[in-house]
């Protein structure tokens, strides 16, 4: 009706499935070629994948022999090995403890994502969860048997490394970013040196250094736990990247904001907390989420110093001679776990970005 009233219709694409297809998929020769290529690839891959994953496998199989007879993916392997992959070498009968820790950590992370819960008690809840996690994992009190942290492994370990990694690297990174922009020459120089040194070194070499070289420098009889050393290496590494990202956000804030905050009489730290960071972090939400995602996945590098994280646990499961040749299933399984966590971070940050943008529009 409106269209009639205004006379000739503008270039609004006509409705209908055929028109949509023509506009989106077959609009030009190059587009047609790409569409055909994509369709061909899908045709090659999809049926084969579905067949391997769901059609061929014998879902009632319970031994490797049955699996091999049926062909396709061997889900019995996952059924038999999922506890080794998820919890590593943690004593079998005590594995409810890491399971509970995993549930608690995931729970508190999800709670932290809900803005309604951003109250002082959330910090208390974090402390409770961390203390409970430590008690549950180590044991030795309340009738729980003691478990060495060299036996920890799998998903809880990956979660612990990345949660603590983010929790400590994030504030450290912010301080470094502020330090790099500081007018005090010593603080600025230290921040720059730290950031550039750490960014110039691969995480793997940091991990090696922390596990092999650091003990050489420590006095006789004095040792820091291997897990803790790896954790510190991860924190130090992530902090340098977070610092550079946050610095980008700080630079995006107009000078007038600092001036207005200063003119009100706010102290430096009040300016940072109330005016600068809330705006700077909003700007760098997406790259920060990327850093968190890669930190989560980079924890798998601790395999090089023999810590039993999710990836190492999967390798251990494959190494079982009885279940030979099911590595694809194991890697697929842990890939799914990694994906669920990373995708959740990604979606959450996108949602948060959208909400904050709307609020300050």
């Amino acid at each position, binding site marked *: 009706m409106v269209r009639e009233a205004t006379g000739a219709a503008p270039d609004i694409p006509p409705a209908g499935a055929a028109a949509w297809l023509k506009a989106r998929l077959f609009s030009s020769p190059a587009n047609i070629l790409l569409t055909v290529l994509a369709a061909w690839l899908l045709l090659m891959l999809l049926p084969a994948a579905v067949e391997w994953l769901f059609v061929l496998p014998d879902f009632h199989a319970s031994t490797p022999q049955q699996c091999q007879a049926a062909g396709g993916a061997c889900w019995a392997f996952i059924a038999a090995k999922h506890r080794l992959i998820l919890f590593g070498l943690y004593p079998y009968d005590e594995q409810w403890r890491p399971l509970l820790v995993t549930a608690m950590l995931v729970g508190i992370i999800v709670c932290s994502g809900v803005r309604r819960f951003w109250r002082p008690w959330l910090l208390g809840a974090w402390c409770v969860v961390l203390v409970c996690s430590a008690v549950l994992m180590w044991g030795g009190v309340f009738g729980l048997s003691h478990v060495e942290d060299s036996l920890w492994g799998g998903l809880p370990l990956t979660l612990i490394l990345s949660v603590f990694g983010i929790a400590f690297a994030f504030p450290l990174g912010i301080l470094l970013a502020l330090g790099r922009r500081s007018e005090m020459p010593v603080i600025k120089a230290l921040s720059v040196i730290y950031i550039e040194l750490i960014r110039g070194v691969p995480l793997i070499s940091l991990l090696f250094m922390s596990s092999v070289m650091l003990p050489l420098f420590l006095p006789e009889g004095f040792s820091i736990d291997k897990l803790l050393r790896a954790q510190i290496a991860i924190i130090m590494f992530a902090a340098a990247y977070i610092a550079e990202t946050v610095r980008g956000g700080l630079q995006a804030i*107009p000078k007038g*904001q600092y001036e207005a905050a*200063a003119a*009100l*009489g706010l102290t430096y730290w*009040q300016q940072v907390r*109330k005016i600068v960071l809330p705006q700077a972090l909003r700007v760098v939400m997406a790259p920060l989420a990327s850093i968190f995602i890669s930190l989560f996945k980079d924890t798998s590098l601790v395999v090089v110093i023999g810590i039993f994280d999710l990836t190492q646990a999967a390798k251990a499961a494959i190494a079982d001679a009885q279940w030979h040749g099911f590595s694809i299933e194991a890697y697929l399984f842990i890939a799914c776990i990694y994906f669920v966590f990373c995708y959740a971070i990604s979606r959450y940050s996108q949602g948060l970005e959208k909400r*904050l943008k709307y609020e300050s529009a």
Partner: protein
Amino acid sequence: MAQAMIQMEGVSKWFGSFQVLRDIDLEVARGERIVICGPSGSGKSTLIRCINRLEEHQQGRIVVGGVELTGNLKRIEAVRRDVGMVFQHFNLFPHLTVLENLVLGPVWVLGLPRRAAEEKAMHYLERVHIADQADKHPGQLSGGQQQRVAIARSLCMEPKVMLFDEPTSALDPEMVTEVLDVMVGLAEDAGMTMLCVTHEMGFARQVADRVIFMDQGRIVEQNTPEAFFDAPANERTRLFLSRILH
């Protein structure tokens, strides 16, 4: 004679090798209303920005309300508590609502309870005729409205001195009046010391006790508005006035 609110003695400042302020002597009495004008680059903005130390002077003395401005952070913060500033580009905090913009200073700098700060904020929002926008974000307001919010934000700190740095020059012409009206209302309240960098000569005539003309970092001429506009003594002042009044 009562102690002056602001004393500047031999103040000089350089940006690199360029001297923006040359040996400025200025005394501002309590409650005095001053309009500063001059061609762009004459140092007028820099002059008032030195008063709350957004710019650092390199020579001379600046004393505000009995506190001399030095590198001492405590002194700078004390001066800034007493000196409000309104900027050309408003500089409202875009991530906070209008009300939160106003409450921030009283709560964090003056230590007021939130309730009291909000009441005070609403009082000043009413005074600048914009109380109905308290829950919006600055980005949703027009330029004139934003500048009025910025004035209210400064007033919430109940400053002894208000500095205006070209408060109307970033505004669309039809919004200039609403901001000037608020400023005139403010000037008519006794007690507030005002320094205003502006080219709104009507405003200067209406409210100023003294008009200062600056050129090339110097105070070239200062006088009452009547004398300043009707019988400018200096050649450069005459030239400037003839340019902006026609």
